[in-house]
């Protein structure tokens, strides 16, 4: 799990926020993040798109799924979950809601009970019918933990939980939530050579998704 980026999700009033730290593994990716631009080639010729460093993926208009852990497992689980979610939506002819996606992911992870994917996951989104925000974290076997305030994953999750407990309060508006979540992510950085490259913050409200990039120390 050495390449585990941190992911923190918080609930506000009719909004939710996710911050995912850029997860760096190789020299090429590090140079790429340092240049902070979209697809560009490095001196060794490898091309990486900045968006590949992101660990939070959109699974629908109002659904975000974030992962932390082994990169290859993240890619695999992401594509398997996407398949199951698409099949579900085709059968039902309507967008999947967060509870169903949580259960799909949980069952998918538990199917590999004795050879698990080494990842932790967050499902965050809005229920279409009730218009309420929803966040839930999951461990590597699919044990789901639905939260009313915040969830954190990754190596720095202890620090994240600690700082969030201090800073979070209920009924945060979208801009207040943005501040709180950024502060928590910055304060709770687990400092080693793989951290500090920056993070991506997404604030999801029922009708819009705002993305911000937080610059890190990049050293």
């Amino acid at each position, binding site marked *: 799990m050495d390449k585990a980026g941190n992911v923190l999700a918080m609930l506000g009033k009719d909004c939710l926020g996710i911050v995912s730290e850029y997860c760096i593994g190789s020299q090429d990716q590090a140079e790429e993040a340092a240049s902070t631009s979209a697809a560009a080639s490095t001196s060794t010729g490898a091309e990486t798109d900045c968006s590949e460093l992101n660990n939070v993926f959109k699974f629908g208009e109002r659904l975000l799924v974030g992962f932390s852990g082994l990169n290859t497992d993240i890619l695999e689980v992401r594509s398997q979950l996407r398949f199951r979610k698409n099949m579900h939506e085709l059968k039902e002819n309507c967008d999947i809601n967060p509870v*169903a996606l949580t259960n799909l992911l949980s069952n998918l992870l538990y199917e590999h009970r004795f050879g698990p994917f080494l990842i932790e996951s967050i499902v965050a989104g809005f229920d279409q019918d009730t218009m309420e925000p929803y966040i839930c974290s999951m461990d590597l076997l699919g044990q789901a933990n639905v939260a009313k305030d915040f969830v954190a994953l990754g190596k720095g999750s202890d620090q994240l939980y600690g700082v969030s407990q201090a800073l979070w309060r209920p009924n945060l508006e979208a801009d207040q939530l943005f501040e709180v979540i950024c502060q928590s992510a910055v304060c709770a950085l687990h400092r080693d050579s793989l951290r500090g490259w920056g993070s991506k913050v997404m604030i999801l409200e029922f009708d819009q998704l705002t993305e911000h990039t937080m610059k890190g120390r990049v050293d």
Partner: protein
Amino acid sequence: MSNDSGDKMDTGEASSVQEGDGGGEESSENDDESMECDCDCDKVAGHSKGLETRRGRKRCSEVLTSFNESGNIHQLEYANTCASKAEPSVGIVAKNGVVIVTEKKLGSRLIESNTVFTMAKISESIGMVYCGIEADFRQVTTKATKIATSYLVSRDQAIPVNVLLKDLGDNLQVFTQSTRVRPFGLALLIAGWHRNRAHLYKMNCVGSFQPVRAVAIGRNAEVCNTYLERHYTDAIELDAAIILAIQTLKLAAVNNLICSHQMAVGFSDQNGFKRMTDDEVEPILEHLRFECLS
């Protein structure tokens, strides 16, 4: 339906067609008229030309559900006929719920009516009634319950009615495209409540289903459907719908007489699917009889 045209072909014409064919294509009506089949099957059943035996007699194959030259599958029509001659069922969608009623076939007074299985609860808010063969209904109920429960286990949510019916329809369709099996002799009415809305579907033995707002199936269905068309409105409430459904069932009953232990009434609303007991149905019947008398 054009299925009768083949049967009326005269024997001479049929045999001349067969001699020319040499047993290549399948043509069930020709077989019926002039062929004597070696096996014990009913000649009218949709068996097709099989292999020629040495004496020139044809043996039927085991495919029951094959097409004839008019493009029909006899077995499916016969199955639908079986369902349409059976005890009637009525379903009505109301603004705040959906009701399904069915008549129970009780051979004599000595049968315990509350153990006769005519109405099935498939999931928390989905119920099903049938017209046709009760043993087939039990099989289909098992299939439907499995589908609904496995959906609940894997997604922790109640199954939407149309998703259930797609899977159930696929299961029923298998029996129309396999050898050595017959289709189910059933017509089904499935009522459910999903997403703050009542749903009612009608499904036939082939596995195809349609959403409906008010429908009657089984014996005397035309009379009942005409009655429903006249009396059904979109703004009907659940209590009025239950009364209308029982009245419609009464129309289809033998001698227009029916009592509370001869029918099963169930409704699905936001609290789920519930089957009404005889004690709950009795006051409604009394109320209706009172109206009829005056």
